[in-house]
């Protein structure tokens, strides 16, 4: 990733594009923002980084008018503004791209962009004017989007581009992006960064909210680190390093590279032969996939999201039916016997799903209830036909202690925990069941850096205890850090296999793009 020359620093006496002075906000007992002071110059990009719950989202929501600060001042181009609603923020020239897009899926791009600023009762005139203006924006910033395509048919990367266009169309001079790469492939992320550099060069102020150090290093000029509601550091990106930032975020030294001994693979625990999965329309999403998992190894599945990894994981776990093929595990054929997830779990096949909130937990239930999900029929949680509430609570408290889940309150609703703590609880649930094979999808998606280190250590400990792990992740770094053997998927097939020692980012990247590996002699 080549760095373009940074934009010329704005003249010293020009006021910052956005300036926050002493922003303070409490939610009940939680002091979410403590006297935050923060400034972004026009024509620069500024990273805002911190662990989940550090207060970055609250701060940005105050800037965008979702929340009202208890005290403090917001200045735009040196002028104090009152921002009580997103409309006022937009009027002040602040635009925001949310992590979860705010688009009407079955409208076209054009309709989405003009939504709320149609400019008159009849659409035709407004749409024509908008089309011309969007053409100009597309030229100026390299934001090409098919204007008449329906949003739901666009890739995630393009949908995000629509969000950026929406903000620019409304005259944003300050653009806030909240975790913009959480949903992007590495390639899409690179395109986004290129776009952000162009915006910066054109004099916009870009604020990037993230917890990924790589992104901060790649595109920002300055970076502000938040921890527990307060700013703990503000530095020029050039003068810092990922390690330095991580230490500021967590408040202690962090191991970015996981330490692990070479794998000592043992007996084959699970084997997959010619597995095929078709979707509801009969399209093959998984085409004749074969591989095996041995005791004491971590096999990583790399690939651009949507190339069959999710289908593979679900077919193995039993949440999706395979149409053909064989999964041998524990002396049984899981496909032919059509075993459901419960039966597979009983055989020792545990699963940490990719999308935690959609599948792995029930957000409205207590942590204790979530900690028994899938194991709720187990004798240890029931006594005489009734749930054993004391045992359920005690088991959850034990998991929370072992996996450092905070706050350690089994009664608390799961939604009240941060992403990292939710994931630690799910991991605790599946690891505590002492599985032979653990399927794990996106183990650190939406998880803060301190928790990532912890989760990686636990996964390696599980491997060293002689279990087999199948790891699906869109983070190539994670695959490279954890896996002993790497399978690359493209178009529903396993396109190549690499031992960790032979794997490089370039080789894997080529395979992810569909270039078959040469058969090694």
């Amino acid at each position: 990733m080549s760095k373009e020359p940074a934009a010329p620093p704005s003249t010293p006496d020009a006021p910052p594009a956005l300036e926050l002075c002493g922003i303070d906000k409490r939610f009940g007992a939680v002091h979410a923002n403590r006297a935050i002071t923060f400034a972004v110059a026009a024509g620069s990009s500024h990273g805002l980084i911190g662990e989940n719950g550090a207060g970055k989202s609250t701060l940005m929501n105050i800037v965008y008018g979702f929340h009202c600060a208890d005290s403090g001042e917001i200045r735009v181009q040196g002028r104090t503004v009152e921002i009580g609603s997103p409309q006022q923020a937009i009027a002040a020239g602040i635009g925001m791209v949310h992590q979860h897009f705010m688009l009407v899926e079955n409208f076209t791009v054009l309709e989405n962009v003009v939504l709320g600023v149609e400019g008159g009762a009849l659409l035709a005139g407004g749409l024509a004017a908008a089309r011309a203006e969007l053409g100009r924006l597309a030229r100026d910033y390299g934001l090409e989007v098919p204007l008449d395509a329906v949003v739901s048919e666009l890739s995630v990367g393009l949908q995000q581009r629509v969000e950026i266009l929406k903000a620019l169309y409304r005259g944003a001079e300050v653009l806030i992006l909240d975790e913009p790469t959480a949903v992007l492939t590495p390639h899409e992320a690179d395109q986004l960064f290129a776009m952000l550099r162009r915006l910066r060069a054109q004099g916009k102020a870009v604020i990037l909210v993230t917890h990924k150090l790589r992104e901060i290093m790649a595109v920002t000029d300055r970076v502000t680190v938040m921890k527990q509601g307060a700013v703990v550091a503000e530095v020029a990106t050039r003068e810092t390093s990922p390690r330095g930032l991580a230490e500021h975020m967590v408040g202690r030294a962090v191991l970015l590279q996981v330490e692990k001994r070479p794998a000592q693979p043992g007996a084959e625990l699970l084997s997959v032969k010619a597995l095929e999965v078709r979707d509801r329309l009969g399209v093959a999403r998984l085409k004749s996939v074969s591989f095996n998992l041995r005791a004491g190894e971590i096999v990583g599945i790399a690939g651009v999201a949507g190339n069959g990894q999710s289908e593979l994981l679900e077919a193995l776990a039993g949440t999706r039916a395979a149409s053909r093929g064989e999964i041998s595990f524990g002396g049984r054929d899981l496909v032919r016997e059509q075993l459901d997830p419960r039966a597979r779990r009983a055989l020792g096949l545990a699963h940490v799903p990719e999308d935690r909130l959609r599948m792995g937990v029930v957000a409205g239930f207590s942590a204790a209830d979530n900690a028994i999900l899938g194991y709720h029929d187990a004798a240890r949680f029931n006594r005489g036909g009734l749930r054993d509430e004391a045992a359920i609570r005690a088991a959850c408290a034990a998991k929370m202690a072992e996996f450092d889940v905070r706050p350690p309150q089994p009664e608390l609703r799961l939604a009240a925990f941060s992403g990292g703590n939710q994931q630690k609880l799910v991991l605790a649930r599946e690891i505590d069941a002492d599985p032979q094979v653990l399927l794990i999808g996106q183990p650190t998606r939406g998880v803060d850096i301190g928790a990532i280190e912890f989760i990686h250590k636990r996964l390696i400990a599980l491997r060293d205890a002689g279990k087999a792990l199948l790891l699906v992740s869109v983070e190539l770094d994670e695959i490279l850090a954890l896996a002993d053997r790497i399978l690359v998927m493209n178009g529903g097939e396993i396109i190549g296999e690499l031992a960790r020692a032979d794997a490089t980012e370039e080789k894997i990247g080529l395979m992810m793009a569909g270039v078959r590996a040469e058969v090694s002699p």
Partner: protein
Amino acid sequence: MSAPAKLPRWAEFGLLPLINLAVALVVAGVIIKILGESPLAAFKLMATGALGTQEGIGYTLYYATNFIFTGLAVAVAYHAGLFNIGAEGQAYIGGLGTGLVCLYLGTWPFWVVLPLAVLAGAIFGAAWAFIPAWLQARRGSHIVITTIMFNFIAAALMTYLLVNVLIKPGQQSPETREFSTNAVMPAAHELFDKMGITVVATPLNLAFGLALVAAVGVWIFIWRTRWGFALRVAGANSAAAVYAGISPPRIIVGAMLISGALAGGLGLNELMGSQHRILMDFPSGAGFVGIAVALMGRNQPVGIVVAAVLFGALYQGGSQLSFDMPKINRDMVVVIQGLVILLCGAMENVFRAPLTALFARVRSGKGIE
């Protein structure tokens, strides 16, 4: 951080329903004023009519019994993520089962008839809920639509049976003969009599006790058993249910069977307890009131019992009102009841947002650390 603030429990389960009720009464008061009566006097009349006398209390609890059964039926389906609009039809068919036991086995001793009647009511009610449930689980037919339609089918079926099959020979009105005395639910005043306490005779009967037992049973089932847990998981997040090895189609069928069985309890109160025969349209809307009761009671058995008593009081107080205030006829009483259902049931969330905002402001103002 940006998670919506939540109301404290006492406000969620106490204050919010009370605000809804108060607003409903204010609107009703305006209507009463327009009709030329004094709202305060009317409400006083309703309150004393429902709760001020032994007779009023008896009738209030008698109506409440029906609403507890149907409210619980709606709530169990709700926890499984299903909106059962068909409690009316399930209660109607369930009552048929109870009535048949009473008609044909009613000469057996009461303590034999009672469990059979309970069982038959439950089985018939569950059977009527099974078809929509199966259609939803296996064919994806929306349960709201099918259960509504099954209410009409139930009504047509019962009309046919009462007019052509079950009618007491030699009479005009489509009703069966009276149950034998062994198949009559002991009335509350008889039970009090045995304890040496004299109370006014009302239709209140043992079925009220059965309804309370059902409420306790539902609470235990939903919150304290693994089956209830599985049902709640399937209702809250069906993908997570599949992941956990819970089969959503099975939960749909199971929850609807329980829901229909609970609705089938209405016949115990209405037929065995009060009418002593099967007659046309005996659920008289209790299945629909059950929806409002479940909503107002937040689908919690305790809340449902409280809401059912409130609606029972509204029914009893309303009839008292139409007796004593000639300008307010029976239809106006239905309007007032409808307003309460509208504001407490259908529009129960209208005041949630402002109340939540108010609480958030009060709390942040104090800033407890």
